[in-house]
């Protein structure tokens, strides 16, 4: 204690200085703590801990990666994905940049991103970007939901959260994997990946592929009859004129000897000269046009767009099962009976609704279903084959994979925008032939569920003890203390 009384000014300034000094210290300490921090996951099944695979990947990052968290806060997965991305940022340190965009409230930013990455700006998703490459992970692909409670009015429940697997595999692709090249053939009137033409252009389709880190390229086999070594897959998008024998030989060789991957979409009536090639894999493109008829006030109107149902048990259709796919201007396909030495059976992916038939006389006037001549519905409209498939679906690696679609028009710009299932089907097909799903072996997080089975009497007894007995005993204690002090 001091003997002399310091002046008021000194006292005042001493207090002010202390406040300022400690405030600076506070800010500094907390800045450090913000920069360098750690989290500890105390949950029983380590719900919020990244797997070693992800952590190692994050520690070894050479280039910065940006994660866009493009989600509506009301989305059921918001807090899950938020926590997950924060862990990526924590473990990735300076290499991970993280931006939260609420599409409803950051309208300007949302539109900016929607424009840059070409999406509607309404979906909830995570965008993983590194350098020139980026990949989208849509909300619905991150979790398996349990809808069983919805009937009784309960919200959908997360059965398994696969966010880490999805984000880490996307991260791997944008960081390490050169984007894979998919070649679109040219020279036979195929859909052009640069054309904006609504009915024949494939610009939208190509953009969709870029979303999943695939580079669409073009290939002219007449100029140079060779399929480049870096081709991950070949797309033949609705040829109108026949392929030359040299070209066919190249494609045949690619499919057979290089275990090639092919996505082929066909126009009705067009002679592509690829029939023999497809037949080798057990698929025939019928010379038909899929048609339906409606009678409006006595006038029969023909319909060329076939609504088709997806058939399950295939990686292409499983995610979009129960949705309707529209095949515009299509021809039907037939799965041929198994031939000797043929590996892999074609699997039907989609069938048109029953009222649509396969018209054989599509170049004549007066088209209607003629028994015996035309093909009766439901028509098979898309088929997939994998020569690596062994019997019961056990997959042997390294097979030739082909997807045939009876319609090429359905993947043109306008239908791709108009029907939401067209792009899904297209991207799923290309992903499947490329085996796009990297198997990382990251386990999904499964939330534990708890329940109680108290009888009403147990409940009221518990309530009595906790809400009455406990507070009352405190009150009694207080009275006792008060009496004792008075007495």
């Amino acid at each position, binding site marked *: 204690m001091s003997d002399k*009384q*310091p002046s*008021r000014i000194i*006292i*005042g300034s*001493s*207090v002010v200085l*202390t*406040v300022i000094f*400690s*405030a600076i*210290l*506070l800010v500094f*300490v*907390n800045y450090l*703590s*913000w920069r360098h*921090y*750690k*989290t*500890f*996951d*105390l*949950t*029983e099944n380590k*719900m*919020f801990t990244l797997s070693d695979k992800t952590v190692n990947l994050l520690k070894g990052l050479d280039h910065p990666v940006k994660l866009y968290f493009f989600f509506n806060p009301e989305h059921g997965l918001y807090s899950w994905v938020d*926590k997950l991305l924060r862990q990526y940022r924590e473990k990735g340190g300076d290499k991970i940049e993280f*931006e*939260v965009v*609420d599409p409803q409230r*950051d309208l300007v930013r949302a539109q900016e991103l929607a424009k840059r990455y070409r999406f509607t700006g309404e979906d909830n998703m995570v965008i993983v970007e590194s350098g020139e490459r980026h990949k989208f992970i849509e909300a619905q692909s991150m979790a398996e939901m349990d809808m069983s*409670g919805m009937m009784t009015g*309960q919200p959908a*429940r*997360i059965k398994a959260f696969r966010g880490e697997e999805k984000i880490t595999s996307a991260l791997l692709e944008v960081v390490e994997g050169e984007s894979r090249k998919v070649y679109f053939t040219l020279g036979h009137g195929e859909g052009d990946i640069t054309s904006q033409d609504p009915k024949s252009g494939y610009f939208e389709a190509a953009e969709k592929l870029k979303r999943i880190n695939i580079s669409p390229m073009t290939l002219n086999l007449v100029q140079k009859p060779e399929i480049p070594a870096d081709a991950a897959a070949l797309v033949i998008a609705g040829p109108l004129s026949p392929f030359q024998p040299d070209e066919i030989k190249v494609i045949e060789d690619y499919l057979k000897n290089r275990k090639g991957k092919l996505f082929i979409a066909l126009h009705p009536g067009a002679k592509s000269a690829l029939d023999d090639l497809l037949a080798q894999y057990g698929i025939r493109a019928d010379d038909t046009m899929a048609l339906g008829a409606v009678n409006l006030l006595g006038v029969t109107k023909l319909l060329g767009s076939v609504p088709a149902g997806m058939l399950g048990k295939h990686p292409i259709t499983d995610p979009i099962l129960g949705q309707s796919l529209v095949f515009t201007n299509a021809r039907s396909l037939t799965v041929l009976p198994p031939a000797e030495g043929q590996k892999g059976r074609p699997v039907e992916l989609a069938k048109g609704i029953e009222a649509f038939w396969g018209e054989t006389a599509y170049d004549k006037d007066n088209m209607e279903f003629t028994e015996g001549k035309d093909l009766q519905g439901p028509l098979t409209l898309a088929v997939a084959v994998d020569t690596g498939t062994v019997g019961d679906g056990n997959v042997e690696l390294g097979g030739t994979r082909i997807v045939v679609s009876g319609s090429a028009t359905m993947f043109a710009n306008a239908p791709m925008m108009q029907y939401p299932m067209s792009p899904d089907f297209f991207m799923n097909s290309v992903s499947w032939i490329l085996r796009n799903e990297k198997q990382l072996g990251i386990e999904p997080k499964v*939330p*534990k*569920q*708890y*329940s*109680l*089975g*108290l009888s009403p009497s*147990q*409940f009221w007894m*518990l309530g009595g*003890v*906790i*809400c009455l007995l*406990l*507070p009352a005993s*405190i*009150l009694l*204690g*207080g*009275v006792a*203390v*008060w009496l004792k*002090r008075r007495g």
Partner: protein
Amino acid sequence: MNFNTIRVILQRELRSLFLSPIAYMLAFFYLLITGFTFMISVQALNESPRDFTVMEIFFQNFFIWIAQLFIMPVLTMRSFSEEYRLGTFEGLMTAPVRDWEVVLAKYLAVLAFYVALWAPTVLYQFIFQIVAVTPTPLSNGPVWCNYAMVLMMGMLYAALGLMISSLTHNQIVAVLVSLVSTCMVFFLGLLNFFFNPPGAIRDVLSYISVFEHMEQFGQGIVNTRALVFYASASFMLLLVTQKIIESKRWRA
């Protein structure tokens, strides 16, 4: 450091806290609130299965956290204000004690009472076990995280209340200003939900957001950021309080 001095003052403080009828009323109402909240949680889980245990649902209840905002201003309002008013402060100041020993002892006393208020809730799950016969599904990690959060919030609010109490002779002023301040601390972090601040401000608000800490700890994640924030902010407030006391002593 003289632990003995601190112990003596602490005992004096605790006696005045635990022997006042108001303290028991406070504890009574507090237990009513937590008790009802616990029963609401039991009811919720009894109705339909959920992804959380009873105690986790209990801590998710907003009531608990609102009650938190009120309790500390009430507990700390007396700390200095009453001594100023009754004139016992001079007596304390002329005794051979250091300012910060006084501050620390009063702080610890308030915290001890606060812990005592919360202690019965630890019994809830055990009472449940006995009364309901069936064992409660436990998830210890998240539950202890929640208690850690309760303690850290108490540390911060207590330091804040103590500082404000050291500034005024009037208990009513102290309790009101404290209440406004704790509410401000609490709701500052919520600004991120209402507005959409740019990056840096968002980061700062989220760093100090009590609400976000509650959410994170509530799920069983311990974050060193929050630990450092509460510890350093409490420490700074106590330091300022000590300075204020020191200046009062000189002025006296």
